């Protein structure tokens, strides 16, 4: 066994042990739902910073974004403005949600929607959306791990990495079941330390070895210009072509709106002990976005370094193998795998919370131990379902899984995010809008599949002579809002009852 593989094994086994030990952190009764699912809502600025960083910066950051840059050039950099403008949203909208969730004892976004609108059907729709949108996101994490496993080779590469993936998956499910949110919170410390070390090393070493950034971009420009043109696709370059402007901006904006309504984001945010902790973290977390930006640029380094691979997801592990000694490549591989395990655990917990609290069981203020047990079992089911997405879904880039999941996720925006500010929408109108959004989003995604044999995140909208290639999630959100608004006018005209609002203005006040 090589030194890199040994280091890799030590680190991964080490954090697994931590995951199980985390159940003893803070002497909590893990039979209680709050304690298992939200770590007892006691995390301060530092723990929250690690947990949120570990939660939001995932295989998306280490694998999927560099792969998109490698394949599509400047377009892949949309993740940087996305990871920038997401934080003002957290600062304002999610801080407000934290306040009302704390006062009213919510665990999930659907808890709030039920309380606000008094509508059981809407609650279930919100919860189901969170679960199905989490699946492709978890699948993205599994793809990241699988890529590293097949890269390491040997026993890890058996069956294209699927055997090792199966083992990782069982371990993940086991410690999540035992320790709840405390497991990823504790592991996140190790994960983030490893990530910072490897990314800083990569940025110090790789561009210099390639003759500096100026040289990297010059050779990338030449290499991209020499690539054979793909019919129907805009050519990749180090700058955007004007036809890509709309796709770039809508992918950044749409992703920004959907990021913090994902169940895993909500779970980590609600674990904070105060609203102030969330706002302080909104100002501190962009430090991870800088890492994301530099990791994205590694996609260009891979082109300049002449790395040729059929699997663009593999370029970051390949770069480390090429420019670093074997033992350090082991550290980097461990960073990627742990960096995928932590968010996968939180996503599974978040999705299971939604199923247990909002789908299978009517609300009960007491939250008896039975609910915790159901949620624990459901984390296992959620992880298993995510595996299905990995095995065979025809996408060109892994990032498409997250973007299309986002197209579903964004459809709860009117009921959840706008609902934090206004009760103007009629609950049934929101449900109709949600249906319209889900159908539009799924239909557009399917249309891209019919057109090219692969799912794509952007749809060419023809408006007269103007063709706007934009992010499907935003088109679907527009349909959603239009239907919800029109239906609300109709219900108001018919003097229909608006249902009961369980919250008062006082609940939102700081």
């Amino acid at each position, binding site marked *: 066994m090589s030194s890199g593989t040994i280091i890799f094994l030590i680190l991964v086994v080490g954090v697994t042990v931590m995951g199980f030990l985390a159940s003893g952190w803070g002497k909590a009764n893990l039979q209680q739902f709050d304690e298992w699912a939200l770590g007892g809502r006691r995390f301060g600025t530092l723990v929250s910073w690690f947990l949120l960083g570990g939660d939001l910066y995932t295989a998306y950051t280490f694998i999927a974004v560099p792969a998109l840059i490698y394949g599509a050039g400047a377009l892949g950099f949309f993740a940087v403005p996305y990871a920038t403008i997401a*934080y003002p949203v957290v600062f304002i909208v999610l801080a407000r949600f934290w306040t009302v969730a704390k006062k009213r004892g919510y665990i999930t976004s659907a808890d709030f929607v039920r309380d606000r609108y008094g509508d059981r059907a809407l609650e279930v729709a919100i919860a189901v959306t969170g679960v199905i949108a989490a699946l492709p996101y978890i699948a993205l994490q599994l793809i990241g791990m699988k890529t590293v496993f097949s890269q390491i080779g040997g026993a890890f590469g058996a069956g294209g990495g699927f055997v090792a993936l199966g083992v990782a998956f069982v371990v993940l499910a086991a410690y999540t079941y035992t320790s709840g949110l405390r497991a990823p919170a504790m592991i996140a410390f190790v994960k983030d330390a490893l990530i910072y070390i490897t990314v800083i090393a990569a940025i110090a070493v790789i561009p210099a070895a390639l003759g500096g950034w100026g040289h990297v971009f010059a050779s990338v420009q030449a290499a991209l210009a020499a690539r054979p043109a793909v019919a129907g696709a805009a050519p990749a370059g180090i700058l955007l072509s004007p036809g890509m402007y709309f796709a770039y901006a809508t992918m950044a904006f749409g992703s920004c709106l959907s990021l913090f309504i994902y169940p895993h984001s909500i779970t980590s945010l609600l674990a904070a002990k105060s609203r102030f902790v969330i706002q302080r973290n909104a100002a501190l977390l*962009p430090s991870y976005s800088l890492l994301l930006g530099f990791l994205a640029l590694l996609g260009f380094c891979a082109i300049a370094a002449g790395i040729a691979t059929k699997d663009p997801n593999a370029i970051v592990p390949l770069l480390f193998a090429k420019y670093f000694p074997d033992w350090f490549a082991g550290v980097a591989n461990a960073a990627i795998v742990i960096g995928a395990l932590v968010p996968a655990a939180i996503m599974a917990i978040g999705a299971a919370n939604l199923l247990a609290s909002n789908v299978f069981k009517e609300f009960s203020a007491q939250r008896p131990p039975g609910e915790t047990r159901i949620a624990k079992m459901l984390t296992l089911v959620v992880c298993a379902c995510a595996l299905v997405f990995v095995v065979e879904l025809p996408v060109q880039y892994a990032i498409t899984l997250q973007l299309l999941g986002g197209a579903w996720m964004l459809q709860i925006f009117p009921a959840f995010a706008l609902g934090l500010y206004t009760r103007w929408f009629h609950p049934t109108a929101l449900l109709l809008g949600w249906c319209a959004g889900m159908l539009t989003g799924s239909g557009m995604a399917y249309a891209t599949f019919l057109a090219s044999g692969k799912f794509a995140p952007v749809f060419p909208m023809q408006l007269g002579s103007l063709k706007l290639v934009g992010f499907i999630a935003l088109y679907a959100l527009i349909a959603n809002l239009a239907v919800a608004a029109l239906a609300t006018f109709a219900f108001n005209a018919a003097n229909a009852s608006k249902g009961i609002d369980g919250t008062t203005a006082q609940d939102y006040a700081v």
Partner: protein
Amino acid sequence: MKRRAWYWLLIAPFVATLWPPFYNHADPALYGLPFFYWYQLLWVVLTSLLLWFVLLMTRERTDV
């Protein structure tokens, strides 16, 4: 709640990053990075500073 007016400052990063024609050019480069890239990375830092500033201006005495 006049202090909430500071929140309007947070529109700046949206305007600055969501209009690509604004920054979609190579020059001036910084350490070999085309303008497109370092401009957007710069906005990561600026947004972080802006959030700190707004936090200081809107912070309540009771916040911990």
